[in-house]
């Protein structure tokens, strides 16, 4: 594989699986980091089983989630229970700058691949462990997914309507936040090693990283002694601030007025100039207080109209508005197209496929998707021969010993 880009000198031996961990090294792969991900030939990576599946046909290569999290990486399959697996892994650790893993805390120790063991092989090693709740504490062994960390970290309770029980955040919410902090921590540790020659161990609790997205609520509790409550789509500083029905099945438009002048523009766009003089809506505070009346007026206007047209009409007047987009609509969105958010790609088994591109655009060393996510064990030969310098005899010998499953 062609390794160019701002991180071309970074080599990672990556044991991470499912979503949060792999999503972080995907970001680094976009910028040229060389990543060898190790999969079990017997225990399937959960991400390979999760939707969306191409053409709704589930198979080990068809998951868009897996493909999004692992594009640009090399993949090898090694059975870690095999006694000879360790010799391959040890060579990979010698090759790598960074070892990453996302098992529950006892797995690496069981294989004698924990930080204390690996730093004997490579004293300046950087190793990062990431799991839901971190390497220590009573919950360290809790297995599971980001929906569970989102619940116990306070996210789920704050999404929904005040008159009902919490609806919860969609999916494995902390898995969307933690990967950024994982990537930052890896790059930071590399910078520290560049300056000092010193490696280190990084213990990431995905919950602890994600809680940084709730700090205002935590300060409200700690400073004002007030328990934050879910509030539907209301906002304390803005009104209108809601999701309004439009024509069609599950069609909605988001409309927000951040100040009085946007409110004036909205009234004008609705052809309801008289609302500007309505004392119930004269100031932001009054609009927030009387938002129920306000919302029903706006609903009457949006119902039956096209969400995209309302968006266009309001944005032309500087009023924040957007169609609430599902995948089909986002796929056609001219701005996401302009940003090259969707990247077409050939996959050796799926044929033509699509995944999400790099999120940040760097002017001189732009990120790019270097190739599709690896099939199970796709790069065994390449990694052992080209990266580790094994001869064919040794590779065959390992295969006969059952190291590759």
């Amino acid at each position, binding site marked *: 594989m062609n390794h160019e880009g701002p991180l071309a000198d970074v080599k990672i031996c990556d044991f991470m699986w499912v979503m949060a961990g792999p999503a972080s090294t995907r970001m680094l792969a976009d910028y040229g980091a060389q990543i060898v991900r190790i999969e079990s030939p017997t225990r399937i990576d959960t991400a390979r089983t999760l939707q969306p599946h191409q*053409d709704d046909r589930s198979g080990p290569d068809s998951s868009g989630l897996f493909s999004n999290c692992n594009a640009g990486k090399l993949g090898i399959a090694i059975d870690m229970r095999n006694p000879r697996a360790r010799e391959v892994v040890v060579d990979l650790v010698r090759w790598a700058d960074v070892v990453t893993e996302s098992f529950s805390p006892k797995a690496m120790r069981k294989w004698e691949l924990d930080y204390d063991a690996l730093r004997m092989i490579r004293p300046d090693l950087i190793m990062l462990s990431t799991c839901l709740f971190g390497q220590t504490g009573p919950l360290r062994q809790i297995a599971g997914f980001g929906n569970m960390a989102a619940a116990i970290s306070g996210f789920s309770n704050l999404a929904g309507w005040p008159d009902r029980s919490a609806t919860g955040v969609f999916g494995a919410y902390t898995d969307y936040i933690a990967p950024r902090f994982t990537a930052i921590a890896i790059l930071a540790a590399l910078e520290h090693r560049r300056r000092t020659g010193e490696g280190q161990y990084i213990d990431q609790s995905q919950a602890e990283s994600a809680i940084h997205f709730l700090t205002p609520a935590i300060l409200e509790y700690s400073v004002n002694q007030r328990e934050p409550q879910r509030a539907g789509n209301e906002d304390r500083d803005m009104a209108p601030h809601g999701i309004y029905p439009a024509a069609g099945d599950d069609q909605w438009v988001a409309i927000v007025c951040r100040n009085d002048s946007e409110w004036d523009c909205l009234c004008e766009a609705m052809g309801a100039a008289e609302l500007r003089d309505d004392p119930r809506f004269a100031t932001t505070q009054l609009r927030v207080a009387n938002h129920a009346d306000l919302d029903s007026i706006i609903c009457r206007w949006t119902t039956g109209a096209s969400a995209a047209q309302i968006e266009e009409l309001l944005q032309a007047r500087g009023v924040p508005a957007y169609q609430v987009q599902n995948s089909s609509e986002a796929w056609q969105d001219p701005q996401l197209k302009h*940003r090259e958010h969707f990247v077409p790609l050939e996959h050796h088994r799926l044929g033509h496929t699509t995944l999400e591109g790099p999120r940040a*655009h760097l002017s001189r060393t732009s990120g790019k998707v270097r190739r599709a996510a690896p099939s199970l064990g796709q790069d065994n030969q390449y990694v052992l021969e080209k990266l580790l310098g094994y001869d064919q005899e040794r590779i065959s010998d390992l295969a006969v010993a059952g190291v590759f499953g």
Partner: protein
Amino acid sequence: MPILESRRVLDLSNERGLLCGQILADLGADVIAVEPPGGSSARRLGPFAQNIRDPERSLLWWSYSRNKRSITLDLEQTPGRDLLRRLAGTADFLIESFEPGFMARHELAYEHVAAINPSLVYVSITGFGQTGPKAHYADADLILLAAGGPLILGGDDDRPPVRLSVPQAYLHAGADAAVAAMVAHHERVRSGRGQHADVAAIQSVAMATQSGILAAPLHATEIRRLAGGLKLGPLNLPVIWPAKDGFISMTFLFGSALGVFTRKLMHYVCAQGFCDTATRDKDWIGYAELLLSGREPLSEFERVKEIVRTFTRTYTKAELLALALEQGFLMTPVYTIGELTRSEQLASREYWRTIDDPLGGSGKYTVPGPFVKFSATPIEYRRRPPGIGEHNREVYVGEFGLTESEFFELTRAGVI
């Protein structure tokens, strides 16, 4: 030695970008918030300490300005722009989150500043990106969540989609911006050259669709929202389940990876007398296919879920958490913020930190601790969030070499 020690960051960002600078500050960089006279627009956003609307009391500002210093500077005045260019000449990073075109109109775009300091890493954070047909769209948290795909997936199916009540869009963007800054920095220390990173929140929030945004290009079924879960085709898949004293989040799914957990749970449910062995012994690995093909009626799935609900409702959140630990079930309690702050797990890891009262009082306030635990370079909280222009003299006179009379003149003219 902090990782980014002696790296200087000019943080011109407002509510759209504060987190990016704070992450660099946590890594040890010298981050200087550059605020307009009167303070950043982020300071006008709540919640507010003691519910008093005051720019020094914005808890949003307090949340994402730790470890930063603050200076004021009026970019609308020529001397202010000149001063910013001088400051940028000495900086390693510049972060800004004005609407696209603002910096160019003030001759402070990347090209202008790079001419002075070619090694500068210049990070722009906006709703929709610097260019494109909707680059100039008006934005807000709710608007970006709608645009980037996560909003439609959350909420009750009989009501409009609903957001998390704590704004998230620009936190996703700010964290992506910090990744971009670190990538550019990594390259800069090797090449000596800076560059411009253009981050768009519309793309950052798409991360929260869990790749669901790919459904259309992959010709796959769109996920739809369901109170406390999601709908996939005809299947209603709950994630939030009732406990005796509240709710839990539980993964109750099927397939080769997750079905084994469901099987384990159903064995326990059966052993506790909540169902018969025939129910226990269903094919939990292949269950989704059975339902989708009609070989198992959806009504039977509804009956199974009712059994599981009866089971979870029998126990308290704490009992279910203990069961998760003991049996390896995929369940955790839904906590309030208060419950979160009392978490034994976080206490045992000494997670929480305090900041001194930014208003100068004697109080200390609880904030989230380091985003990861570094063994060699632990993150330190060195400074409470700064007041508006608190470090003007220290920075302008002490470090940038303005004379007292220049400083006095610029202050009097309202530039500082």
